[in-house]
């Protein structure tokens, strides 16, 4: 009974780390541009499938496949900003939603053409069986996921707190006009935000693929659950995203374990709706959601 309980906690935290990374992807673009990127989930899908491509047909070692997949997805994010978002600088919120949705469909369709409709698997990052801790089996990959997620969060926090580029990006978020007057190239900061969030999404995709495989149409669901974490944690809040991701992951894992595995995908969405209804500024938010 209690071993089950701890088992669910482990798997909930693992998937929660993924949601947190997706949520951070939303947060980066949102804090610089106030755009909600509906293609965020597709970055995760692309990361996983690119890693499959580099590690499978091209026989790259795993760490290199990881780096290449993240890099390729970063290029996709760059292209998205250069060729699409850049053309719609003054578009309304509604047109931007439609535009990012269109990009997400195109990425999904492209992935279907390239990789087909079947799920693809990827080897785990380290060999060896699960680690046993008093009856609870922990897959080494779960540790990889939580570790890499923690590393990314630390690196991002340092980036935004200490580096000049991070500070410049935050300045764009606060007031783009003032940032431009202060000599910050806002255009490049927006580009950087898209590349960065594509890469983080891709990293999440690569590390989750050994656990749950990856196929072309996983993006939308991962994306919206990540958005749930972003809203629950407060849009633009990195630490909030982390906590909210863990909450969503745990809720989902407990639902699958104790209630119904068929409805586990609905749990995160119900929490998203509840968060929007009850506390749209999120657990750690600043209250700017209200119009």
């Amino acid at each position: 009974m209690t071993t089950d309980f701890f088992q669910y906690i482990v798997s909930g935290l693992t998937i929660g780390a993924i949601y947190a990374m997706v949520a951070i992807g939303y947060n980066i673009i949102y804090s610089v541009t106030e755009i909600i990127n509906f293609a965020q989930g597709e970055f995760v899908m692309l990361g996983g499938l690119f890693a499959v491509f580099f590690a499978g047909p091209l026989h790259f070692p795993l760490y290199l496949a990881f780096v290449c997949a993240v890099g390729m997805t970063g290029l996709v994010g760059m292209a998205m900003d250069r060729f699409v978002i850049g053309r719609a600088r003054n578009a309304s919120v509604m047109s931007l939603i439609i535009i990012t949705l269109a990009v997400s469909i195109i990425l999904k369709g492209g992935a279907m053409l390239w990789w087909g409709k079947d799920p693809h698997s990827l080897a785990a990052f380290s060999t060896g069986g699960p680690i046993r801790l008093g009856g609870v089996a922990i897959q080494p990959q779960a540790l990889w996921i939580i570790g890499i997620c923690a590393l990314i969060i630390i690196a991002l926090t340092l980036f935004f707190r200490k580096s000049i580029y991070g500070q410049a990006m935050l300045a764009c978020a606060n007031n783009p006009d003032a940032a431009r007057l202060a000599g910050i190239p806002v255009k490049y900061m927006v580009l950087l935000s898209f590349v960065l969030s594509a890469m983080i999404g891709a990293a999440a995709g690569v590390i989750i693929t050994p656990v749950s495989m990856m196929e072309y149409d996983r993006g939308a669901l991962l994306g919206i659950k990540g958005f749930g974490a972003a809203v629950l944690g407060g849009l633009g809040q990195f630490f909030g995203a982390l906590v909210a991701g863990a909450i969503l992951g745990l809720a989902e894992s407990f639902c699958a374990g104790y209630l119904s595995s068929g409805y586990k995908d609905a749990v995160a969405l119900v929490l998203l709706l509840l968060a929007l209804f009850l506390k749209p500024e999120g657990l750690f938010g600043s209250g700017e959601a209200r119009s």
Partner: protein
Amino acid sequence: MGRKNWLILLGAAIFIAAFPWLVAQFKAISHYVDVMVFAGIFSLVCLGLSLLMGYAGQISLAQAAFFGIGAYASGILTTKFGFNSLVAMAAGMTISGAIAWLVGVPSLRLKGHYLAMATMGFGVIVNIVLAEEVNWTGGPSGMADIPPFRIGTFTIDGEIAWYYAVWAVVFCALIFCFHILHSRVGRALRAIHEEERAAESMGVPTARYKVRIFVLSAVFAALAGSLYAHYVACVNPSSFNLMWSIRFMLMVMVGGMHSLWGAIVGTVLMTFVGNEWLQVFAELEILVYGAILLIVALFLPGGIVSLVPGRIFRRKAPEATLAEGAGS
């Protein structure tokens, strides 16, 4: 509604009335009547969505879910409980409207993207429920043998009867929408769209009007879903997923979201594209839809009707319609 719209309506009605006779002259396209029945059903969804997008400035990604609620309400209530078709239809519309109200009231208080995400989440939940509640909905394989639409002793039977019934409903809905736009609510909506804060400070209860339009769009979608269920006689969850919500949005965008005529033109065109002309692309379909959506959103935000010279379909100068859109 103005005289101009009545004239267009009359022209459209004559064309629609003559359409089955016209295509019957050519064997190769005689099945177009069937395609037009679907186009009519989808037009109902898109009319509501067009009011929501073009006039209330909001996006819903749950229209396919409301469409599905209407379809399944009709399917379940008529097959499992022996309800009258009309009562089942009304029940579906009521449920849909009530849910839209529940989702709309909180999320329409927030900024633009929240309704889109809330409805996207809600749409996915509906799809999960449709697939999971096997005893009621038949699960992923859906329900079959939904009885034909019957009012008293009269049954809508056959393609031609369905064609005229559906399009009669579409025209009624269209006239209803025009009346809304020319009422107090319609003027308020236009004010909201042009300058929301100004409208608010003039005492227009913006959130309440947006909620009403959202509820109306859900009711229209449920009505369409009910007709759909009776027409095709079998339904399954894949007709009501996120991709279909995006398709409905695409139909409205292609026609032009600031004109109710645009919604109908776009729907008919995209239904033919989807059901007939795009079949050659098969696998590429989704990619083509994405490309069309992107191109329209970036380069033709006013849709097809904005290409029509003069002011036939438009009430206002184009810059008032999507001034803030399209990256101009």
